């Protein structure tokens, strides 16, 4: 069980939305994590290289900074099934770049642009993820 947090989640979502608007307003870029990160991998895309690095540095540093300033501890339950996490990571990385976007690029920015392409991608990955969780938790019980 995790606690349903409508207000904190809405507030966090608003912050994510503002971040996406800032990146577009200032630099003209879509705040898509898979797109930004994959272009930093070798051979790195030289265009706007330091901006991409700065965005990722901010993203990675943010939770530590948030914990430091707010005094709140960020609760997290990550699976200890390390082979499973390796497979999951590989699929997430490959799939998000193959499909040209992840939860941020398609899910947030794409839906906000009213893109059909992003809507189809978002419905697909949420649907497949839902089926996966159903199979893992209710068919193959106890592996997660």
């Amino acid at each position, binding site marked *: *069980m*995790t606690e349903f*947090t409508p207000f*904190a*989640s809405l*507030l966090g979502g*608003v912050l*994510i*939305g503002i*971040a*996406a608007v800032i990146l*577009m*307003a*200032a*630099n*003209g*870029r879509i*705040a898509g*994590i898979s*797109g930004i*990160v*994959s*272009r930093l991998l070798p051979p790195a*895309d030289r265009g706007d290289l330091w901006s991409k690095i700065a965005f*990722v540095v*901010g*993203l*990675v540093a*943010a*939770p530590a900074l*948030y*914990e430091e300033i707010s005094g709140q501890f960020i609760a997290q339950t*990550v*699976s200890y099934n390390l082979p*499973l*996490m*390796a*497979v*999951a*990571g590989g*699929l*997430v*990385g*490959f*799939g*998000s770049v*193959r*499909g*040209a*976007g*992840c939860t941020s690029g398609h899910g947030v920015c794409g*839906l*906000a642009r009213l893109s059909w392409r992003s809507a*189809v*991608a978002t419905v*697909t*990955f949420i649907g*497949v993820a*839902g089926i996966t969780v159903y199979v*893992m938790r209710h068919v193959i019980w106890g592996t997660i």
Partner: protein
Amino acid sequence: MRVLSALIAGLMFGVGLAVSGMSDPAKVLNFLDIAGTWDPSLAFVMGGAVAVAFFGFRVLRGRSKPLFAESFAWPMARDIDRPLLTGAALFGLGWGLGGFCPGPALASLTLLAHGTFVFVPAMLLGMWGARRLREGPAQGSSSVSQ
């Protein structure tokens, strides 16, 4: 200024993930588990983010260029093709297994969970593989992906 605004956007994005609870894979998996311990929080995160970005982008559509760059890089792709669907399906499979998508995984590195340290390198390897598949072995990069 471009680097500074990107840093601020990244920080804000990461704080948003932390505040919303989305850096916790358990919360994401519970959102996906409608038949079990359902936690609808993720819908509120998406709702808030999409609503703000929708209005923000609408305002920006009326402008000719961004503050610190020559032009807006609005995505142009419209077609619903096979890479989009297979990619999104494989991403969904991995997301359902691990509970991490790329943003929360990266924003979890400093929280020092073992699973994150396995997930993130595997994710980067997968991204690299998908880019190579699209661009061929020794070319520069295109700008199709978001």
